[in-house]
């Protein structure tokens, strides 16, 4: 008998309209098996898992029909108290963001102990021993100290290990993991995936793993279910799905995954330098009346050049200083020392007022298109605000805005609408149009495609490429995603802890990495052995 058996599950919005968001899906997971539920945002994958745990947000979503059987027992028939008893003992869940999923004001050891107190009658000593045992199992160092720490005192990877410990301490039959590694760096992700695999083998847990990342799927899945807009598209063993997908949607999804194989180098067209950064340093903290003088060297002697019409990628994990460099280049923060030359002008030391004429030449596209557009302004108002500020007549700016919207693939009628009426991908196009309206020479894209689904990501990357070949703009592309970097960058600069460890043509750096850090990053990239777009393993 399967551990979890979802039969014809329907979930609707809990209101009069009753719009259905999950249309009758069926899923089976056996003991010791890892099943991946894949899909883009809005596919209903998280909703299905929350329905299983009985954690659908009250008053907004409800199960309308179907059965969810855990070891043959229908969870939908349980009383709230019975369901509570089943959680953590027979089924557990871990979530995407380990910072927000742990209570910030309670020590992590106590948060695990709480599970034992709620479901067992163990004495304090027994509880403590069990907590220490599970902390040991999830591979945490110095467990006594970790148990006494608050979440913010631990790293992202450690926090996720705590979440896993909390979920597995009572050895549930089923573990649901909702994008558990999405918020982590690749090297940490690799460790966490391995940990989950090991624990699963030791305990025989059935794992329902929800992800949007095909690389992760290739790494851990036994079987795969593909979901799209509340429907189950197809399912099968992982090899079958990756090599011979039957449905168009699955094929499209796989084709959108950017390849780790770097793009072929483009010939350098213009020798005109667009950006030259020399020995840039940024030191945070240290000053202040009677305060502790603790400094962070966020960027150390960073030097690179970028010529017009080319794209330079800065890649690195969190804390590598890549965003600090981007913000210094934009002069959103002041560099501690070093030169930033845009075109022929040194802007590193300019005052706010002196900087004004050059702001126009530098524009930025941010990570989260949901928050980077002012929700109270129409698209047109957002786009023309900059040019009008620099003296362009309003009528002219409007005409230009219409052209730009067309350039980024949106109808001109979009101009009068508000940001909330657009999808994430469309908003990112708008953000790009807004940046281009200033006719900048340099576009800084800070994780500009990281929040987007792969199919949308592919389109936005294509758009950036197209815009670049039309306008000859230089792009500084900040990303943590080596796949994306491989597809869009001419040169890549790898950063770690504020320092550049490797800099060169993308084909060289990613194709034949010299520095061990770059090598370890590549080795950690999930699914590096798969060429998803061609439905086959990478030819060795």
């Amino acid at each position, binding site marked *: 008998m399967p551990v979890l058996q979802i039969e014809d599950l329907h979930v609707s919005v809990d209101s009069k309209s009753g719009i259905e968001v999950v249309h009758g899906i069926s899923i089976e997971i056996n003991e010791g098996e890892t099943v991946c539920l894949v899909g883009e945002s809005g596919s209903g994958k998280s909703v299905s898992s929350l329905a299983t*745990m009985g*954690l659908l947000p009250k*008053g907004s979503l409800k199960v309308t029909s179907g059965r969810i059987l855990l070891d043959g027992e229908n969870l939908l028939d349980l009383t709230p108290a019975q369901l*509570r*008893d*089943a*959680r*953590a*003992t027979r089924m*557990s*869940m871990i*979530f995407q*963001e380990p910072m*927000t*999923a*742990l*209570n*910030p*004001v*309670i020590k992590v050891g106590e948060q695990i102990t*709480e*599970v034992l107190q*709620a*479901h067992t009658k163990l004495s304090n000593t027994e509880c403590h021993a069990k907590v220490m045992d599970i902390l040991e199992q999830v591979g945490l160092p110095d467990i006594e100290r970790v148990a006494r720490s*608050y979440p*913010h005192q631990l790293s992202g990877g450690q926090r996720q290990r705590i*979440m896993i410990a*909390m979920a597995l301490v009572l050895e549930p039959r089923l573990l649901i993991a909702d994008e558990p590694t999405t918020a982590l760096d690749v090297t940490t992700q690799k460790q966490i995936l391995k940990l989950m695999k090991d624990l699963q083998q030791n305990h025989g847990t059935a794992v329902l793993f929800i992800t949007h990342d095909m690389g992760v799927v290739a790494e851990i899945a036994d079987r795969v279910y593909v979901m799209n807009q509340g429907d189950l598209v197809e399912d099968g063993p992982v090899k079958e799905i990756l090599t011979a997908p039957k449905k168009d949607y699955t094929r499209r999804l796989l084709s959108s995954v950017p390849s780790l194989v770097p793009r072929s180098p483009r010939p350098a067209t213009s020798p005109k330098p667009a950006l030259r950064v020399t020995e840039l340093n940024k030191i945070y903290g240290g000053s202040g*009346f*009677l*305060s502790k003088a603790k400094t962070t060297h966020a960027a150390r002697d960073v030097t690179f050049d970028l010529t017009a019409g080319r794209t330079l990628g800065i890649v690195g994990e969190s804390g590598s200083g890549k965003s600090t460099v981007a913000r210094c280049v934009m002069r959103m923060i002041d560099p501690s020392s070093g030169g930033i030359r845009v075109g022929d002008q040194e802007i590193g030391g300019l005052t706010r007022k002196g900087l004004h004429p050059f702001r126009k030449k530098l524009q930025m596209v941010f990570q989260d298109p949901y928050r980077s557009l002012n929700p109270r302004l129409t698209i047109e108002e957002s786009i023309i605000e900059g040019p009008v500020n620099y003296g362009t007549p309003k009528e002219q700016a409007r005409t230009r805005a219409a052209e730009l919207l067309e350039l980024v693939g949106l109808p001109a009628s979009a101009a009068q609408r508000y940001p909330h009426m657009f999808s994430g991908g469309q908003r990112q196009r708008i953000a790009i149009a807004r940046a281009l309206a200033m006719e900048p020479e340099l576009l800084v894209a800070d994780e500009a495609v990281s929040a987007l689904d792969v199919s949308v990501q592919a389109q936005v990357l294509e758009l950036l490429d197209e815009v670049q070949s039309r306008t000859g703009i230089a792009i500084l592309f900040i990303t943590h995603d080596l796949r994306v970097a491989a597809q869009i960058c001419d040169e890549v600069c790898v950063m770690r802890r504020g320092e550049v460890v490797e800099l060169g043509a993308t084909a060289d750096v990613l194709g034949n990495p010299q520095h061990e850090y770059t090598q370890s990053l590549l080795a950690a990239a999930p699914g590096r052995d798969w060429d998803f777009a061609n439905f086959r393993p990478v030819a060795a």
Partner: protein
Amino acid sequence: MPIYLLRRVLAAIPVMLVVAVFVFLLLRLTPGDPAAILAGDMATPEQLDRIRESLGLNDPLLVQFVRWIGALLQGDFGTSLISNKPVIDLVADRMWPTIWIAIITLSLSVAIAVPMGVLAAWKQGSWVDHLVMTFSVLGFSIPVFVIGYLLIKLFAIDLKWLPVQGYKAPSDDFAGFAARAVLPALTLASIYIALIARMTRASLLDVLNEDYVRTARAKGLTERRVLFRHALRNAAVPVMTVIGTGFALLISGVVVTESVYNIPGLGRLTVDSIFARDYPVIQALILLTSGVYVMVNLLIDLSYSLLDPRIRY
């Protein structure tokens, strides 16, 4: 932490100095001559001059100010123009009733308002929530003296459960003290309860949407444990802030409440000295209340680090 404390105390000095300048100027610039009041209606111009001279009212303002500050620093708040007693003694006499009322009010407010807010947030949209919100609008919008007289009418005159007004020291007669303190404290607390209940509800509603609340439920904890152990402490910081800033309401409420219930506290002293234009007393009282306000808010800021381990000074 000690460095932070030192910094905050040092930062309070300029604040208090600005308060002192305002207090000093405000009273000098208001119409009405203290010498004339002291001397009474029948005084001759010569007598007035003599009084002004003895009080130093003829000196330039700056000289008066420096002299005044100098005396303050030595603990000399001057002498009451009316009773001729040192101001510091007057304040010390009247301090205890107000402190007692304030303590009872604060405890009562927190004890009533926090559970109310939690209940309203937990049962959001239900009749309980609507009841709490209605009460909090009423508590906020009905003036303190109206509530005071309504409570007296109901509990003291109609039901005869409690005395109408007055004050007894708790050391003399605790039962008498308690019976007389309940109504003033309730009166004063009404606006505070309204404020804190609203804030608790709003803050808790935010927290209930957090991921860690979902995690707590996923662990199979009971709703009570989710609410009180996981949600409430995270919701506490904004509530503490409101308790601190709302302290100003308490100060103004004290003035009215003590008049309504005839309590010989600082509030009554304030009203009496304002009517009598008893400058030294008014000045001392304003300085005292500002000082207490600054102190309370410092304590509140320090309490954040107890509530939330991420906040460290």
